[in-house]
Each structure stands twice: as C-alpha cells, then as structure tokens.
C-alpha cells in the first residue's frame, strides 16, 4: 500500500531535465521595493500611536547573581512614569519544552529570559521595565529601580562550564542523553551522538591522520534594526502587538504562553522587518510591552532596544569548542572521523549543536564515524538561531582538517572533496539516505570557475603573502513547518496573494512569481501582502530557509485551485463540461472557445461569487543545500591583518525563482561568514561583562572590507518542490570561515584553529606556530 509519505514525495516529483518557465528565473522589481527606497515602508519602530508611552528595560550589570530584592517605588514616583513591571507580573510557568519554529523552547526558561526571576544569568539579562511619557523619563526611572544582587561566580565558555566544580546556573538542570536524565546538577544540558561503522578499523586504514581542536567565539546576527515592540492591551482585554518578527503567529503563540492567555486574545501585526537571520524568531519585548500597557491603564507602549541591548540582551549564536580527528587513505578516501563538539547555549539550554552535528560531516561519505555533541549552559545571552545555526563553527573545524589532509597527501583540495563528496543514495553521517543533491556539481563548477583556474594575484605590497582556500558547506534546511495562503482573483484580473510569511529579503516577489508561473500571469499581476495573525491561517517563521520552499508549495496549490475554479467558470460560461476546458499559460479554452484569465476574471463575480482559494499545508519534505566557496586572501604577517581579495560562492539552489535575490542571499551569507571569520566576537571581562556591545567594537564588515562576491548558481531541482526549489538562505554562511582559514594556511603555512581570525589571533598563531609552518 502506498503511504502518504511516498505520495507526498511522488506527487510533487519534478523531472530533472531542464524545465522551461515564463516567470521563474526572471528578475522583476519587488512589489514592496518602491516603499523601501523612498522611506515610506513602516518598520517596527516606525509605529506612532496617540498617547503612546515609551518603555525601557532595566538589565543586569552582573553575569551571574541572585536577585535579593527589587524596589520600584522611587521609579514609580518619578513624574511621567506610568508603569513598572518585573517577573512578579509574570506567571511561573511549567518547565515544559515545546517545538517552536525550528527548535524547541522551554516555556519557563523563555519567561525567565524575558524577565529574570530568582537569578540573573548574564550581563544584560532583563530584570524590570518601565513605561513613561518620554524616553528620558523612562531612562531616568531605570536608575531609580533599586535591585539588590548577590553576585555569584560565572562561566563564559563551554569549557569553563563543563569543568568539575564549575558554578551551576540552573540547579534543576540534569544532562539529557536522548531521554535518559542524569543524576547530578550540571551545566551540560544534553549529550547527543551520531555513530556508525568501526572507528578503530577506519583509523587503522588511514595513511594520514589529522587531529585538531578548534575554538570559536560568540557572534551576533547583527541585523541593523534593533528589536522593538509596540502593544496595546485593550480595555476589552484584546491585545494588539506591532512588532518586527520572523513569524507573527509564532510570536503570538510565545506571547500567549508567557502571559498564559488564549491565542485568540492576541493579534500580532507584523511590521516590515530590518533583518533577522534567525534572531527575530524569539520574543523579548512583546510581553513586556503588553504588560506595561495593561498596568499603565491600556495606553499604547513602545519598547525599542538600544544597540547595546541588542548585543547584551538578545540571542547571539554559540561559542564552541570542536575536536576533530580524521584519517585518510593515500588515495584521499576518508577512512574515519571522530568529532567531539561542545556548544555554549548561553543562560538556558538550546544551543544549535544538533544542527552542527549534521553539518560537520554530512557533505561526505563516511563509513566509520562518531560525533558527540554537548549542549552547555553559560553566563552569556541565551542563544537564538543564526543563519544555518551551528554550521559555520562546525564547517570551520571539519573543512580545515579535510584541507590539511589534502595538503599532506598532495591532493588538490577540490579533488579531495570530489573523492569523498556525498551524492544521491549515499548515507548521511546521521543516518538517513541522501536524496537528490547537487554537491558534486558545486565542486565541479568551482573547479571550472575562472577564479579557481586563475593564478594567485601578486601581493599588493612586497612582503605580503597571498593564498587561496576552498571549503564546502552542507545545510539541511527546514523543508517543513506550516504555511497558509489565501488567493483572491480581483475582477480586473489581478490577483491578491495573502500570506503569513514574513518578507525579510524579497520573499513577497518570490511568492508572487511562483503564483504567476502557476497561473500563467505576470509577477506584476499578483499583489502579495503579508498580513496579521487574524487575517491568514497559521504560518511558521521565515527561518530555516523554508519560506520559498514551504510557502511556495502552498502558493502553488492555491494556484491550482484557482485554475480549477476558472475552468469551471469558463465551463458555465460556455455551457460545456469543465472536464473539456483546458488551462494553459493564462488562457482558458475548450474546443472552439478560449478566453484570457483577465477577461474571464472580469466576467466573474456578477451574481455568482468571487474566485478565491485558501490553502494551509504542513509538507513533509527535503531540500538539502550545498555550497562550495573559493577565496583569495592577502596576509600581512607583520600585523596579522587578513584582506579578502576575491571571493566566489558556488551553490546548488535547486531552482532560482528570482536569481537576483538568490545571488543576494549567497552574497549576504558569504559576507556574514567572512565577518565571523575575520573579526566578529563578543569580548568579556573577568567578571563576565560584555565589553564590545556596539557596532564600533563588534566589527561587522564594511563595504571597504569586502570585494565583489561572485555568486555562481547551480540548479539541481529538488524533487519535493513543484518548481524544484531548495532553501538558499542559510548554507552560504557555512563555508566562509573554513575557506578563509585554508587560504591563510595556503598563504602563511599556519593553521588557524580559533575564530575569529582577527589580526591579534593571526599574529599569535604566527608567533607560536611560526617555526612549524608546513
């Protein structure tokens, strides 16, 4: 008997051979573009309501401390102050984990992260909030809140937190080993493992073995728009929240859980969002703004974070320590790999170590492999997703080791990847069989690229060293979740596309193009709009590279329903069997009749209702994405400074709906990866205080730090999507750190094992390894 799973997979099989599209693959101007280049587009902080109060959040100066008391009386007495909230205003939630977005959330921990209860667990942890008639009054009021702390020793890195006798963050925490609970209090939230084959035998077969330990710092998504939320708690107890979030429905659900209210009481209105990269899948301010509104007598309250608050108070991604031991036969075949990785989750469990365990070796065929992953809590902000969560640090480690093996064996690094690269039918290190992917295609394309075929450029100044490096990246994406859309045919022949997927980087146009392709219309005929939580079915976050994939499937299904209805309308019009009516390229026809979509749309609706379709789906899917990057660097060995000279990113995108925005995702992901590789990291002092919480000292790349980034699109259609789409957003951030490290090694003979590869760290590596250069 055929199972739904198989049907699902079959139902949407697309043939691999070239398919011709009318709209897909073109570059129309995005529908929301004009508003965004003229300043008319309204983002979260642009909301202006009559009588609106300004909220500010008081944050912990300590990395780890017990809260002895909080006295808000002086703050409340300040003229202009209308309300103060603390965790006392939040219900104590059960310690229960639910699937939220791509990950899992423990509701009690989420609540404690929004407002600390008994303890503060990191510098910047929210403790209280005020609402006042002016920003100044709100800020002054924060200084009048008297919090008594009992400071406790802190742990900043996973290594510190795992040491015996380390200060414990969460007394109730026990190590979870796939359902088995440990006995003793610990900072190790979980241990997981992927294992196959026989390591001993594998290493015995190896001609060369490389073993290295890598450490990486905490990095932030660095979206330019700070978190913001505006809330009105109505006198009818209906709550309206304007915010910039990657998922309005998800935000609504999280607020409902934290405030212990039914979701129907909450409406989330998604404003335009100024970047997220995973960091805006978690809520911070929304319940606070709502409570402040309630306590201030139902006045609108807007809370917007400062840049420091964004760094100190929201989820960056994990620092990590990763041990990799890999062996290879003399022909380049990897015979065994052993990985131990510990990811720092920050104050509460939930690092992306699970994702990292799949990224680190899944691009390769591995028979003998063991990967152990540890999720460790530390006195730093609770991590949030960041573009291919956990992937960049993992690939930095594995791609460096594979590169070193290739060097030692005298094999071209791309050939090394071709020899070991995974393809359809191979088994992932974490078990499942691999469906159709385009990894080897990216390796071949990279190898044939003008970049790889060109000689290294000469140094810009005598004495500087130049080098070239490559690295690959695997990312599973999130081909799932739930997407809902509604489609309305207007009687002027245009079509409204109502969706719940946040548009962070041009997804409105990508959705409109998929509907236009389905209906045989132009992208401009479609009017895509992202609406509030009351106006469309449940929709999961724009994250995990899922939107163009999953919401695209929903759009296509809705389009098919519209086509069917238009055929029936035409059948009525011509008084024929609808079965005899064909629909192709926007023309509806039967034997001797035919009519265009627009003309028929005009005839529709007088007396027999509108043509509409609403679809909600939760597809089972696949859409693994792979990329191979090439970088040329110039290293100043006297200063340790690394300059990116040339960068090429090759990626299998399945099918590029709007190539310009696909290139944009690849270029943007590569740029973030380069920032991570070269300069980005949180710097803490001995007491665990964040020192560089500004865009001056947390150094994301400027226009002057990057070259043009050549995005090379490879299209191996994904059989589980009607147009062959794979998620493209995340995987481009996976290879850069490894590629840059390999280029530095190529230039200097020194292997970097720490991120970022900042001038200071490169200098130190040159000083320590200088004599043992390869």
């Amino acid at each position: 008997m055929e199972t739904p799973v198989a049907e699902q997979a079959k139902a949407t099989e697309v043939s691999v051979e070239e398919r011709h599209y009318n709209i897909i693959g073109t570059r129309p101007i995005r529908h929301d573009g004009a508003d965004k280049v003229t300043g008319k587009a309204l983002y979260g902080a642009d909301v202006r309501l009559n009588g609106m109060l300004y909220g500010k959040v008081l944050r912990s100066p300590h990395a780890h401390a017990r809260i002895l008391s909080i006295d808000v009386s002086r703050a409340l007495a300040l003229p202009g102050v209308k309300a103060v909230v603390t965790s006392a205003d939040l219900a104590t939630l059960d310690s229960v984990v639910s699937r939220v977005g791509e990950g899992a959330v423990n509701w009690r921990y989420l609540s404690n992260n929004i407002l600390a209860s008994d303890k503060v667990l990191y510098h910047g942890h929210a403790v209280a909030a005020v609402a006042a008639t002016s920003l100044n009054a709100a800020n002054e009021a924060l200084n009048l809140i008297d919090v008594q702390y009992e400071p406790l020793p802190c742990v900043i890195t996973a290594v510190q937190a795992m040491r015996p006798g380390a200060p414990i963050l969460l007394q109730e925490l026990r190590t979870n080993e796939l359902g088995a609970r440990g006995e003793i209090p610990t900072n190790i939230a979980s241990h997981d493992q992927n294992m196959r084959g026989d390591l001993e035998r594998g290493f015995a077969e190896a001609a060369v073995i490389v073993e290295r330990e890598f450490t990486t710092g905490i990095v932030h998504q660095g979206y330019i728009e700070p978190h913001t939320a505006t809330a009105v708690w109505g006198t009818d107890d209906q709550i309206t929240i304007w915010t910039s979030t990657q998922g309005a429905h998800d935000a609504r659900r999280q607020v409902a859980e934290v405030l212990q209210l039914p979701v129907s009481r909450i409406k989330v209105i998604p404003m335009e969002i100024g970047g997220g990269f995973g960091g805006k899948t978690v809520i911070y301010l929304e319940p606070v703004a709502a409570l402040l509104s309630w306590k201030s007598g139902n006045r609108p309250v807007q809370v917007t974070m400062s840049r420091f608050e964004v760094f100190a108070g929201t989820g960056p991604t994990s620092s990590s320590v990763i041990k990799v031991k890999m062996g290879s036969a003399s022909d380049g075949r990897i015979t065994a790999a052993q990985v131990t990785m510990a990811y720092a989750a920050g104050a509460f469990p939930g690092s992306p170590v699970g994702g990292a365990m799949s990224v680190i070796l899944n691009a390769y065929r591995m028979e003998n492999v063991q990967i152990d992953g540890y999720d460790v809590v530390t006195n730093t902000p609770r991590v949030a997703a960041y573009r291919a969560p956990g992937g960049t640090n993992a690939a930095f480690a594995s791609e460096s080791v594979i590169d070193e093996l290739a060097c030692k064996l005298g094999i071209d690094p791309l050939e090394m990847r071709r020899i070991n690269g995974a393809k359809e039918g191979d088994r992932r290190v974490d078990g499942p069989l691999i469906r159709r992917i385009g990894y080897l295609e990216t390796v071949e394309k990279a190898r044939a690229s003008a970049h790889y075929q060109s000689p290294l450029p000469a140094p810009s100044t005598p004495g500087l060293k130049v080098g070239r490096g490559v690295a690959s990246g695997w990312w599973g994406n999130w081909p799932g979740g739930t997407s809902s859309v509604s489609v309305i045919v207007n009687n002027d022949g245009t079509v409204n596309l109502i969706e719940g997927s946040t548009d962070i980087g041009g997804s409105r146009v990508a959705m409109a193009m998929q509907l236009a392709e389905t209906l045989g219309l132009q992208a401009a005929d479609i009017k895509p709009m992202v609406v509030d939580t009351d106006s469309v079915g449940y929709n999961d976050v724009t994250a995990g590279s899922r939107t163009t994939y999953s919401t695209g499937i929903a759009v296509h299904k809705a389009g098919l329903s519209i086509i069917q209805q238009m055929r029936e309308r035409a059948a009525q019009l011509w008084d024929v069997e609808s079965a005899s009516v064909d629909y192709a390229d926007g023309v509806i026809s039967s034997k001797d009749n035919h009519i265009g979509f627009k003309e028929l749309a005009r005839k529709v609706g007088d007396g027999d209702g509108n043509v509409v379709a609403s679809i909600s789906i939760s597809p089972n899917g696949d859409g693994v994405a792979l990329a191979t990057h090439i970088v040329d660097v110039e290293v100043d060995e006297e200063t340790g400074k690394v300059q990116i000279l040339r960068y090429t990113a090759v990626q299998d995108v399945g099918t590029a709906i709007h190539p310009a925005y696909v290139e944009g995702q690849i270029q943007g992901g590569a740029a973030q990866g380069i920032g991570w590789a070269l300069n980005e990291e949180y710097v803490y002092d001995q007491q665990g205080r964040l020192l560089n919480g500004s865009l001056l000292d947390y150094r994301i790349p400027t226009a002057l730090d990057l070259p043009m980034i050549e995005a090379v699109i490879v299209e191996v259609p994904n059989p589980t999507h009607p147009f062959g789409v794979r998620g493209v957003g995340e995987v481009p951030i996976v290879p850069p750190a490894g590629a840059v490290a390999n280029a530095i090694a190529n230039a200097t003979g020194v292997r970097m094992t720490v991120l970022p590869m900042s001038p200071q760290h490169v200098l130190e590596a040159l000083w320590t390894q200088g004599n043992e250069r390869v």
Partner: protein
Amino acid sequence: MQAFEYIPATTVKEAIAILAREGEQARVLSGGTDLIVQLREGRRKVRAVIDIKQIPEVNELSYDPATGLQIGAAVPCYRIYGSPAIAAAYPGLIDAVSLIGGVQIQGRATLGGNLCNSSPAADSIPALIAHQASALVMGENGERRIPIEEFCIAPGRTQLQRGEILLSIHIPPVSPYSGGAYLRFIPRNEMDIAVVGVGAWVALDQSGTTITAARIALGAVAPTPLYVPESGAGLIGKLVSSETVAEAATIAQAAARPITDMRGSAQQRSHLVGVLTRRALHIALKRAGYKSA
C-alpha cells in the same frame, strides 16, 4: 539623553564667561561626534552645552606658506582635506583627518574636539604632535599657547583650566625636504578605533640623504597620546637607511606603555608600534624627498 541647557555662543568672550561660571558643568560642542555620544550614554554629565559653531574665529581655516596652517577649533575634518593647498602641504595631517570615523563623521568631527576629548587613541593627536603643532587657548586672563604633546594629561582630561577654551591649532610652515605621515592599525579598513597609531615627521638636509630633524608620536599605547622625543633624536644626523629607521622604531617600542583591552593585547600593541613606526617613517622620508636606492 540627559537634559541640559543648549547655549549657542556667538563670541569667544561669551563662551569663556559661561565656561568660567559653569566649570565642569559646561562642555563645548563643535562637531559633537564624541560629546553627544558621551551625554547620551551618561559618561558625561553637564548642565550646559555651549555650541561654538557660530563664533567666527573658531571657524577660520587659513594656510600661508610663510606662517603655516591655522585650524579653528570648530573646523570639521572635511574642510581640511577639502583644501588642495593644505592637502599638498601637510599630507601627514591629511592621513589622520581623512580616516577619523567615516565620511559622515568627518562632516562634523573637528580636530579641536578630537584634541579636547583627549582620548589616548585619538587619530589626529599623534599627527599633530609629529608636525610640532600647538594649541591656542583663550581664558579670562588672555591667551596662551600649549604644545600639543603637553595638551592631554589623562584620558578625557586636558590642560584647559576653568574658563579656558581652545581657539585654534597651529602647525608651523612646511620646511624644505620635510615630510610627515600618520599610520594607524585597525582590524577593519574603516570605522574603527586605532589599536595603535603612529605619527612621524622628518626633515632632511639638502642632499636628501641625512636626517636633520625627526619627531615621532604614538597613539593608544599610553594614557595619553605619547610624544617620543628620543626616537626622533636618535635619527638626527644619521644617513637614511632601513637600519636607522629600525633603530628609531625600536626606541619608540621601548617608550610605549600599552595595556591589554578589548581592542588589542599589550604584546600586540608593542609589536605594532615597531611595525607602524618603521612604515610611517618610510612614508615620511619619501614625502621629504628621500629617494630610496
């Protein structure tokens, strides 16, 4: 931001009177790129902010080959590098003013502010010291000149007494066969605070081969920008060679007292002082007309 009174002064006298009356409670605003941030972050508390941009004297920017360069305290960076004559005469100063912040910072930021803010890492100060610049200061009891190397006494603190205001910065005329340079090291290529900054200035004899005068100043390696007279003195009378330059760099390194902070380690900074001093001297020598063999 904290509340304060905004006073747009129109005369030097008026500004001085307010400064004398308010003391630490008043602060001069010209470019505001440091002051406004400090006020916003509560790192400075003041009762009055005195905007001096409407005072004619402090907006003067004049260059005369005979008398040198005078830069009013409120002259923003872009006006300095925007003047071809000044850019041609003092490339070493232009090195510094054209890399303070980004273009939009240079539209507001002033050398006067950079000096009075007295940051150890200020980009313009080592360049000014190397160029033997001096500050013209006016108080209730009249004017006085302060060599730039003596102007800063601690992070955020200067020689300015209660009731004194910086009017202008003066750089001596360009002597023949002389050249200056400023180099800073930053991890990015723009929008960074110097990990180390080095200002160098040299003068050669007519043959263009022997050093007759030299000044080296360092940034971000001491509580204040650091003039290292012995480093320059060591070069005087010497024939130009990479050895002599290296010696000067070593002396500069010995004078540096760097600390470890979020922007760099003491060891890294001390190393960079050597590298940058050497490189800055080579540029300065080139500009002075030295033709390397």
